């Protein structure tokens, strides 16, 4: 059968994160252009260049110099300075116009290319968010993070390491209406209230995957922020600490009462001083817990502003 007849009459966007990924660009581009052209009538590619210092962008221009393309097909968003994967990909998703938006957080390919079709086909079964996840070669810290996160987010959607994903336009709209600030996409996507799914795969080459991931920035800040923003882990931790001190103060109080009854006062004035102190500290710790609660609520109301800065959007013109 003619391949063209097999194509979906859909328009899709693919958003790619780029930060010193020049080594993977050629392979990725030939894979993605082939796969998307085989699957869809029309598509656009949006590269978000997060202050790369290598020749990745030149490689993209180079590739399209020798490839047949629509004049409107390829955009490059130049971030003003390094702003990290989350902000950059938010910018990319905001520019995308497709019925479906693919998000590639990494350009290295450690999956069979049929996975792109598989992920897309899953959306046709009624899923608005479908991710391709891979647990191979995961770092211990990442594993810890996901486990703490999933246990405490109190929501249905569990998150894990994802290589790429596809969102329906409906999901993109929903995400937009949830809030302006999206500090951690995965968490929002998986919990936007629409059906979400993850298709797990095994890396073709685990060592290559480890190597590719190794170059990535450690995202400790993001992990901590996400835990604060999406889970009540920190709240719980602070409550436990406060409770602990309340208990200590209480024990101290009991000890004072015991000494008072037994009349074994070591130094004169000790009883009244300690009594006052343990009572006050107990009050302070209880107050602290209340303040923590307020803070967490205020935190969720903040961050209404634009959260990324772009330097410009470029279009690549066809040469053929």
């Amino acid at each position, binding site marked *: 059968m003619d391949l063209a007849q097999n194509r979906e009459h859909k328009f899709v966007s693919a958003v790619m994160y780029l930060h010193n990924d020049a080594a993977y660009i050629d392979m990725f581009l030939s894979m993605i252009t082939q796969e998307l052209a085989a699957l869809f009538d029309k598509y656009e590619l949006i590269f978000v260049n997060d202050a790369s210092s290598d020749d990745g962008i030149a490689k993209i221009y180079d590739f399209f110099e020798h490839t047949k393309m629509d004049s409107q097909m390829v955009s490059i968003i130049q971030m003003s300075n390094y702003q990290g994967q989350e902000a950059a990909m938010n910018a990319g998703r905001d*520019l995308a116009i497709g019925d479906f938006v693919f998000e590639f957080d990494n350009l290295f390919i450690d999956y069979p290319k049929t996975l792109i079709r598989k992920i897309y086909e899953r959306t046709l079964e009624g899923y608005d968010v479908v991710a391709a996840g891979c647990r191979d070669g995961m770092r211990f810290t990442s594993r810890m993070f996901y486990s703490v996160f999933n246990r405490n987010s109190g929501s249905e959607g569990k998150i894990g390491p994802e290589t790429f994903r596809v969102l329906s336009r409906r999901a993109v*709209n929903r995400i937009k209406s949830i809030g302006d600030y999206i500090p951690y996409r995965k968490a929002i996507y998986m919990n936007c209230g629409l059906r979400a799914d993850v298709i797990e795969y095994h890396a073709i080459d685990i060592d290559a995957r480890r190597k590719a991931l190794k170059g990535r920035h450690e995202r400790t800040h993001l992990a901590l922020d996400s835990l604060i923003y999406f889970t009540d882990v920190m709240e719980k931790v602070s409550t436990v600490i406060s409770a602990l001190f309340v208990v200590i103060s209480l024990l101290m109080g009991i000890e004072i009462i015991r000494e008072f009854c037994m009349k074994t006062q070591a130094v004169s004035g000790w009883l009244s001083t300690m009594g006052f102190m343990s009572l006050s500290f107990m009050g302070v710790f209880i107050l602290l817990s209340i303040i923590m609660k307020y803070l967490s609520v205020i935190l969720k109301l903040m961050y209404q502003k634009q959260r990324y800065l772009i330097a410009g959007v470029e279009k690549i013109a066809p*040469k053929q």
Partner: protein
Amino acid sequence: MNYTKIIIGAGLYGLYAAKHCGEKKEKILVLEKDDRAFGRATYVNQARVHMGYHYPRSLSTATKSAGYFRRFCDDFPFCIEKGFHQIYATSSRFSWTNAEQFQSFCKAAGIRCEEAPVSLYFKEGMCDGAFLTEEYTYDAMILKKYFLDALSAMPNVTICYNAKIEDIARYPDHFEVHMAGGSVYTSDYILNATYASTNEVLKLVDGVSHTGFNIKYELCEIILTKASEKLRGIGLTVMDGPFFSIMPFGKTGYHSLTSVSFTPHMASYERLPAFPCMERRQALEGEESCRPEQLANCTDCPCRPESAWPYMSHLARKYMREEYEFTYQGSLYSMKPILKSSEVDDSRPTAIRVNSEYPRLVSVLSGKINTVYDLEEFL
């Protein structure tokens, strides 16, 4: 044959000049490359009578547009369509201007800008402000008929279609225009009102080609759509960056759909427009059909690019509420020259340049119809 003035290009600027001078009883010849007047940029554009809203980063362009807006509407009321709400909105993402800045800009320019409910027109979260503005659209074909009727009543004005100029010889006191058919016309005044072909014409004249404009060329597509009942009385323009506009196209009943990122298909930074599609056209219809030195009409071209409808419609639907529907009717293409100096502030000055004092050669380059009055002091 000798003429008081020879005008090259039968677009709005050319015909306006012809009428203006014809009324002074001057003997005028208009040379038009196509087989019709208003065949290119005068017709193939958004048909906006600019009030200045489009230039929130160039107050000078804005105030100038606003000044000429009234005059144009008063002079040519028969071709102006006013029966719709023109809404300008600022995109909440990727815009170089936000709602507040747009408002204060309108205030500074002294143009109407009333806040409108964003959610009435746009999907949630897409725009941070929407404003009801005063801006109209003109019908190029009605305007053309008006000019052609007026000119045909003037025996002193001749319009020559399918006119291919081979060479323009410059003598101390006159120009000699040599046509492809062998005819020769002389005059001591030439007005070059050919927009995208301005540099092309200047190249034909001895010793003036260096006075050409520093421009980049964009091959642009305007899409004509049929608007649904709800959209019919509305024009929407989302600012200020890679966005779109859908608004009535004169009195045709169509809505034009354009977008900043998808309307230009290709760009050329050469002195004369050089595009890969020219080679395809030449292979099809011979070397003379279209080349940088002899740009043909892009709307009529068999090698025009494939429509960007899938892109533009998706962009528009991403913003607009579902009930505002529109369907594809056709595409118009034209070459658009943009002064390189105006890329950052996105200004669109009307550039008028005297390329030769005597014999006089004047070139005009303007992207807006209502600044046509700028021409008068040079005629």
